[in-house]
Each structure stands twice: as structure tokens, then as C-alpha cells.
């Protein structure tokens, strides 16, 4: 019978297969279970593909932006706020891939390994709720200021990295979603958060990158006088200015956005250096924060020559910039060259304070940042008009990104407030909005005034 016993061990091989399979399944269950439950056919969480059972999303002031009531997902009571934060929160079907309902759905679903999706009604836990750093009212102000034009507004605190305002147009009321296919023109790219997921031709705002390189590489830049005849011919190709600036200093050239001067500076710097400064500024990389990734921008100066390189130095050629990334660059200049990683999840715990402390990253020397701050302040005082931005201590640069095809250029306006009590960086882009400071400036003014009022407790 010993023989039988030995041979019976073949059965144990099968038993081992079963136990091993069970083991592998358990490992997979532990590592991927949270993804499995998120499949939108899961009737515990979804109904007709719509997320119905999830935690609350609130803004920095506790304003409820989304919650589940009686198996139905409800958004804010105010239609304007709903529409303004639609891209930040996401729509009911999860079409906005960077929306909080998509990015944070694991936490929102309240799934955990022990309990699965089980929830005891009376003892509802707050473990599945999330608070954002956004200020919903400020978003509403920004949405209104855009007045229906396509584009985006972003505001962040450059000392803490909190994103206060994130608005993208076109948008819609998520409680009453339209059939976007009926009007493809006005709903063009409606599910894209233009602050995060789009990159635009930057136009003159890119001159800040070129200026940063010039400050560090050309030691006599402040004392030089450039000459602008309204155009410049480089191997038969023209770089033009809207008007003839005549003899002009570096400071005046940035304020008046003189293309000819910056073309000369760019050619003097060489493509390699400009590329290096664009990469240091982070233009070509994607920004990752709180599970969100922005669209990366684009600069190819290394092999560009002549007019191409000159145009690249003034934000045309193949240059593309993501507005959110540029917002963080503005924040870094304002913060003395130190970039604080942005975040949108509001968490005032010790861990997040530590995270903010260690996520600081110097991207330029303090002297360069100071110099740029001085230049950007001069832009406002000498060109954009201090009276439009009274009391804000605004430092800014406008941009008019030519898009070709007979369409009006994209209007950019980016900068920051040089104030200790309101350390805010901002970016405004209006698609085909026309001239940068004229179109985007007033939007920035309205939003920043509202932001300052809300931060300082009104006036």
C-alpha cells in the first residue's frame, strides 16, 4: 500500500494547482481589485454608465460641488458654479478625463479591501469624500469674465501650490448636459480642460523665456540699445513688428514686445541655449500633480536656423505651451525662482505640509527671477496701464499667438501679483481673442480683483 500512497501524491499536484491558482487570484485581487470595481458596468457604483454612488466633492470653503443623493449624482445648486467647475469636477459620464470624478474615483467609490463597496447607511464614512483647493465662486467669476469666449483661466497660490481657479470654455451645465453633436462648432473640444489638456502657440509670452536666457548669458543686456526698423530680413525671410520701434532698450523691448529686438537676441543666444532655457522652464515637459498630467508643450530650437530660430525666440515657429505649465513658470518667477509643486487636493495634514516643503524646486537663480519681476512690473506700468489693475501690484506679460489660417490670434495674458498677502500667479488664454493685453487683460483684472477680495476678506 506504500506504493499506492506514493502514486496518490499525483492527486496532490492537482491540489497544489488549485491552491496556487487561488493564491494568484488573491494577489491579483489585492493589487487590482480597486480597478476592477471601477469598471462602469458595476451596478454597485454606476447606473447606465453614470457614477451614482460616490463621496462628496467640496471646494476650499466647503461648498458642495458634487454628491450622491438617493442614488443620483447631484452637482452644486448654482447653475453658474456647476458650469464653471464642470471641467474640474467632470461630467456625469466621465468624459472629462482630468475631472476629479475620474481621477479620484477610487477614493470617491469608498472601496477598501476589507469591506469592498459595502457601506452602512447610518454610519456613513467621510473616507470617500474629497475637498479641492479650488474656490468655486472665483471660478464662477472667471467663467463670467470670459463671456462665452473659448479659452481658459488659471490661478494658483505660488507659495503653497494651491490651485484656486481652473476654468475652461466652452463648458456646459453637467446637470443638464447638451447634445454636443448638435453644435460641433460651439462645443468644439468641450470635454477638454483647456488649462490642462491643450497647448497653444504662446506668442510673446514666450519672450519671458528668451529674456531669462538673455539676462544670464548676455551680461551687458541692460546697457545695450537695439534698433528696430519695423522689420528685419534674415536670409530673405522677414521678421516683423507691428510698428517701427526705433532705438530701444531691452526693458522697453519687452514692454513693447518688440519682435525685431528679440529676434536679434535669439540669434545671438543660439538655438541650443534657448532650447536649454525652455526645458529648464519646463515648457517641453508635462506637469504631474495629484494624479493629473498636463499636455506637454513643444520647442525645437536646436536645429532651427535663421528666421525659424528668430521666430522660435518670440514664441512662434513650432512653439507650443500648455497654459497650466506656464502658470507654474509664472509662480516660480514670482517665488524668487523656486517652483512649488501645484496641488488641487486640499489636505492640511502634516504629511501634505511636508510634501509641499520638499516639493520646492529652484528652476532659476534668484537674481534672474528678481530681474524678470522688475521687467514684468515695468510692462504693466509702462504699457498695459496701471489704472486697469489698481492696487494689485501686477507683474505680467501679454502674448498674441498667431495661429494662421486667417483666424484671429490667441490672446495670452500671464503673470502674478507681487504681494505677500496675495501670492497669486495667473494665466488667461482666449482662443482667437485678438490682441493679448486688450482681450485677456480685462479678464485677468476681474478675476484677480475678486481673488484678492476673497483672500483679504473684501474691502
Amino acid at each position, binding site marked *: *500500500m*506504500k*506504493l499506492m500512497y506514493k502514486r496518490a501524491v499525483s*492527486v496532490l499536484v492537482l491540489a497544489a*494547482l*488549485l491552491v496556487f491558482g487561488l493564491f494568484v487570484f488573491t494577489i491579483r485581487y489585492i493589487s487590482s481589485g480597486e480597478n476592477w470595481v471601477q469598471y462602469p458596468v458595476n451596478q454597485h457604483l454606476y447606473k447606465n454608465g453614470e457614477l451614482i454612488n460616490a463621496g462628496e466633492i467640496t471646494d476650499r470653503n466647503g461648498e458642495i460641488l458634487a454628491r450622491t443623493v438617493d442614488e443620483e449624482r447631484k452637482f452644486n445648486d448654482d447653475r453658474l458654479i456647476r458650469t464653471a467647475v464642470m471641467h474640474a469636477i467632470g461630467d456625469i459620464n466621465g468624459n472629462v478625463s482630468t475631472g476629479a470624478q475620474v481621477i479620484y474615483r477610487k477614493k470617491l467609490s469608498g472601496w477598501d479591501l476589507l469591506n469592498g463597496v459595502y457601506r452602512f447607511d447610518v454610519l456613513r464614512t467621510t473616507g470617500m469624500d474629497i475637498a479641492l483647493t479650488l474656490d468655486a465662486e472665483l471660478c464662477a467669476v472667471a467663467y463670467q469674465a470670459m463671456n462665452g469666449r473659448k479659452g481658459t483661466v488659471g490661478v494658483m497660490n505660488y507659495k503653497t501650490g494651491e490651485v484656486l481657479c481652473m476654468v475652461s470654455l466652452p463648458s456646459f451645465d453637467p446637470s443638464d448636459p447638451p447634445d454636443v453633436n448638435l453644435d460641433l462648432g460651439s462645443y468644439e473640444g468641450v470635454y477638454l480642460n483647456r488649462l490642462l489638456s491643450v497647448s497653444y502657440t504662446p506668442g510673446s509670452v514666450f519672450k519671458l523665456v528668451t529674456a531669462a536666457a538673455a539676462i544670464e548669458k548676455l551680461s551687458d543686456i541692460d546697457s545695450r540699445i537695439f534698433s528696430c526698423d519695423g522689420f528685419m530680413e534674415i536670409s530673405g525671410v522677414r521678421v516683423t513688428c507691428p510698428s517701427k520701434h526705433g532705438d530701444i532698450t531691452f526693458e522697453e523691448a519687452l514692454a513693447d514686445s518688440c519682435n525685431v529686438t528679440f529676434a536679434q537676441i535669439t540669434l545671438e543666444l543660439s538655438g541650443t541655449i534657448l532650447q536649454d532655457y525652455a526645458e529648464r522652464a519646463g515648457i517641453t515637459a508635462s506637469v504631474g500633480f495629484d494624479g493629473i498630467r498636463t499636455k506637454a508643450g513643444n520647442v525645437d530650437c536646436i536645429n532651427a536656423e535663421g528666421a525659424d530660430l528668430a521666430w522660435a525666440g518670440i514664441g512662434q515657429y513650432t512653439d507650443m505651451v500648455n497654459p497650466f505649465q506656464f502658470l507654474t513658470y509664472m509662480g516660480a518667477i514670482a517665488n524668487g525662482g523656486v517652483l512649488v509643486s501645484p496641488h488641487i487636493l486640499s489636505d492640511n495634514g502634516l504629511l501634505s505640509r511636508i510634501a509641499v516643503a520638499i516639493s520646492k524646486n529652484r528652476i532659476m537663480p534668484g537674481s534672474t527671477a528678481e530681474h524678470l519681476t522688475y521687467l514684468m512690473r515695468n510692462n504693466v506700468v509702462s504699457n498695459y496701464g496701471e489704472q486697469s489693475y489698481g492696487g494689485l501690484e501686477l507683474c505680467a506679460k501679454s502674448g498674441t499667438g498667431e495661429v494662421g489660417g486667417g483666424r484671429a490670434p490667441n490672446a495670452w495674458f500671464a503673470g502674478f501679483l507681487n504681494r505677500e498677502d496675495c501670492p497669486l500667479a495667473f494665466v488667461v488664454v482666449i482662443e482667437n481673442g485678438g490682441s493679448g493685453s486688450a482681450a485677456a487683460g480685462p479678464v485677468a483684472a476681474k478675476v484677480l480683483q475678486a481673488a484678492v477680495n476673497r483672500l483679504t476678506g473684501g474691502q
Partner: protein
Amino acid sequence: MENAIESVKQLIGELGLWLDKLNGLISDSMALLEKTRAVYTLIIRWVFPLLACYIFVRCALPLLHEGKRSGAWGYLGLENGVKYPLMHWENSIGRGNLSDVRIDFPEISRSHAVLSYRRGGWRIFDLNSKGGIEVNGGKIDHSAKIKDGDTISLAGIALTKLPSDIDFSADPGKKTFLSKLAYLGRHISSGITLFLIILFQILGMLQLCFAMSADFNIAVPVSILSLLILECLYFILTRRRGGKYTELELFAFFLCGFSLFVVSSGAPNQLYKQLTAVVVGVTAFSVLKGLIGNLNRARKLKYVLAVCGLGLLAFNLLFGEYRFGAKNWISLGFMSFQPSEFVKVSFVLAGAASLDRLLTTKNLTKFILLSGACLCALILMRDLGTALIFFVTFLVIAFMRSGDIKTIAIISGGALLGAVAAIFIMPYIAARFEAWGHVWAYADTSGYQQTRTMIYAASGGLLGLGGGNGYLINIAAADTDLVFGVLCEEWGLLTAITVTLIIAFLALFTVLITAKCRSSFYAIIACGAATVFLFQTALNVLGSVDLLPLTGVTYPFVSNGGSSMISSWCLLAFIKSADERRRPDIEDIICEELDNLNYDPGEDWMM
């Protein structure tokens, strides 16, 4: 007159008020019920996994414990005083390493003889040895009876049969991990284990009743309570008959409880059918155990069974109907069943029956022919999962019988080639496997069932959402093919794993008892049955979660399905009849002797 009308009006008014009150009371109590139900689930979902694990341990330890197993049953003594103990019902004698009695003389063949304890006495069988066997000086032809004191001469080497020690001194043995574990099981009372199982099933029933408050179905409590009565009845009857271990059956009853839970939440109108299947299964278990308790009877059964099995399959091929892509159902009008489930039982028995003594028959031809016929029929029926189970069972039984790895390797290789050829000839087979390993890419087509199983299994977490609170059960065939997912979602991953480990444990138990079987016949049917259980569970569980291809086989004892339930109980009878871990006491021997005189006292077929 006016007075009367007035009082009637008043009465009606009163009645209306009373009705309003009653209405309020009802809605109050409904709210209370709602709250009670929520609180009940909150607490009970912690109880189920813990209780399930405890029941598992309580059943497993006594099974590992060797109970009244004696030491040596007798000895063979050499002239120089060396004594070889006889430890088994069947003892192989020879020079080979794996002989139970290993006598290392060059004259003795590797497998020389078998000494069996049969019908109250010992008998020696010659295994065509070169040297031959003499008993008390007379050469034997095939076999001979041996009494204590007889001299057996193997190729000239004389051995004396000595009686066993009086005190049955326990085998000191090695203290392995298993034996230490088993030692813990020596005082565990089966009665309390049964009580815990009943408690588990009552708590489960309450959970199911709470969960369906809206459309309450009386069949749920009735069928589960009936199962409890059946369990108690079986336990009492077994005890009356002096039964030894009932843990094996307790395991099965515990699993049957889950079967009723699953059917309750999925198809409550099939509960009575499923309950009937359990009753028929338990009866079949008892009858079959009695039938094969007698070796001669079992050997006679094999031809009948083989013919019946093939007949059933042939009938199925001719008159069967397709369900879920396989032609494996026969409808008799009033009921329908899956013949392949029953063929499984006869296949295992027929496979083992042609071998009644250790190492005597090495000829596998008949068995290979039977297996080939069964496999062909199943493939024609497009029931690939069952065909695979048959094939693996065939391999295990063939190996147990012959130990011939070469032949088995050839057969496996041939089968592999055949499978590859089949995939080329019949593309629908390949189509069935296209999703395997990456079901999420086919989430709404051929990976539909597997992805749903994983989605809902993960939704349940370790503790589950509570019976009747799941959604997976609404997917087609969830109560059979995806039953593991249903257990995960409603009763928790921990409970589902425990339930699966029960099957794995049954296999471990079977292997441990093979050395102590009355005959290698029992060892082989038990291992065959364990193989079917194991492989079927592996295909079901691992198939539903995409670790193996989904083949649509049932989970023994747990899946919804009458044929599967009955055949599971029949296979359990095979394991039970191998569980013979003590020397028969004198009454048993008399029983066997009487049996030998063609007198059947209606012996212990219940236990």
C-alpha cells in the same frame, strides 16, 4: 333608526381611525425592519468568514486525526528473529523500495507477493514471481489462506506469520507537522461542529430573508430549514449505527448550504429542485457506499456501470439538446438532467474495478478504450470542460493502477497533438479561448462573464456585502459557472476561499488515507473522485477569474444543478468508503464471513 345610523357612522369612523393607526404602525415597523436589516448585515458579515474558518478547522482536524488506528496487525518473522510488521490491509512483499514488506534477498522478486487481510483472515497472492511461493511446504498455484504460525517460503526464504501484539502499541511514528495538527483534532466533537454549521446556515437564511424584504419568497426559509432537518436526521441515524467520523459528510452539508444560499438569491423558484437533489444525493451516497462496501459486488458492478455510462453518453449524443453551446442535456419532459455528470461516477468506478489487488493487473487496454469512447462522445457534445475532467481523471487512475509514467506520457502527448489538431479543425474551440488571459480587452464580448466575476468579486471585499445583496447573480449562468464570484460578492473573499480550500483539503485527506485502504480498489476510486472534485473546482474557480479558460463546469456541491449535486454526493461515497482507518472489530469480520455465505443481514449500508 336614526340612532342606529349614527352609531354605524361612528363605528365606521372608529374603524377608519383604527386603520390609519394600523397603517402608521405598519410603516413604522417597515422602517424598523429596514434599520434592523441594515444593522444585521453590518454585524453578521463579520461573523460569516470567522465561523466558516472555524467550521473548516473543526471538520479538518478530526479527519487528519488517525483515531483508533492500531499498530502492527501482525508480523512476518525470519528464522534469524527479524520481524517485519504488517501495517496495512494489503501488504506487498518484495525486494523493491516501495514494498510494504521489503525483504532484500536477491532470490526474491521486486514485487513478489501480496498478503491481504480479507474476510477475517489473511491470504497470500503470488504476483507471477520467479521463485514462487510455498505455504507450509506445499507450492501454491495462485493464492492461499494463511493462519498464524504458518510458514511462508518465498523463493526458498522462510517466513513465519506471527500474531499481532496484544496491546496494539501505538506506532511511535515521526512527529510531522501534520501529525501534530492531527493531534489537536482528537477531542473535537462532531455534534458541536454540526451545531455550528446549522447556526451558520440559519444566520445565512436570516440574512437572505432580510435582503429580499420586498418580494419575500417562502421557499427560502422552507428549503434551508429542510436542509437543516436532513442534516440532523443523517447525523442521528449515523450515530445510531455506530458511525465513526461524520466530518466528511459535514463538509458536504456545509457546501450544500452555500448551494441553497446561491440559488436563493439567484433563482428562488429552483430551490425545491435543488433541495430534492440534495436529498437524492445523500440517499445515493448511502446506497452507493453500501454497494461498494463489498469488493465482489463492486467488481461485478463495473461492467454494468461501464455499459450504462457509455449508453447514457450515446443516448445523449442522439437525443440531447444544446444549452450554452454544449449538447449535454437530456430532457425527459418533466425533468432534464446532464448525463455526463453521472457518467463521471461510473467512469471512476469502472476504471478502478478491474484491479482488485495490489499490482495484479497491469493491463490498461480496456480502461483506455472506455476512456477514449467517453472522451470522443464528450467532444462531439462540445462539452470540453467535462472532457478535460475525464481526461485528467483517466491519467490519475491509469497512473495509480500502473505507475507506468512512460505510457501515460505517450498518451498525454497524443492527447496534446489531438487537441492542437482539434483546434485547427474546429475553429470554434479556438474562438472560445481568444479572451483567455486578457479578458478586459474583450470585456463586453467573450470576456463578459469573467470580467463581471472580477468586478463583483472585488465589490464584495474580504467580508462580502451580505447574501442577496449582489448583482453578479443576475448574469447568465452565474449560479453555476460563476458561483465563486457570487460567493465572493455576497459572502466575502475569505468565505469563498475557505469553501474552495475545503475541496483542496478533501484531496489531501484522500491521499493521506490511501495507505490505509482495505484494498487498492478503494484507494483508486477515492483518488479518482478527489481528482474530479479538484479539477472541476479548479476549472470553475480559476476559469471564472481568467486564470484558466472559462469552460463552464460546475463547482461540486455548490453550483446550482441537480445532476451535479447528486454526482458530487456519489463521488463523496468513494472517498468515504476508502476511509477505513482501523482494524475491523470482530463483528465486522463475522459480517464479512456471513456475507461470504451469501447471507446478507442488511448490513450497515447507512454507515
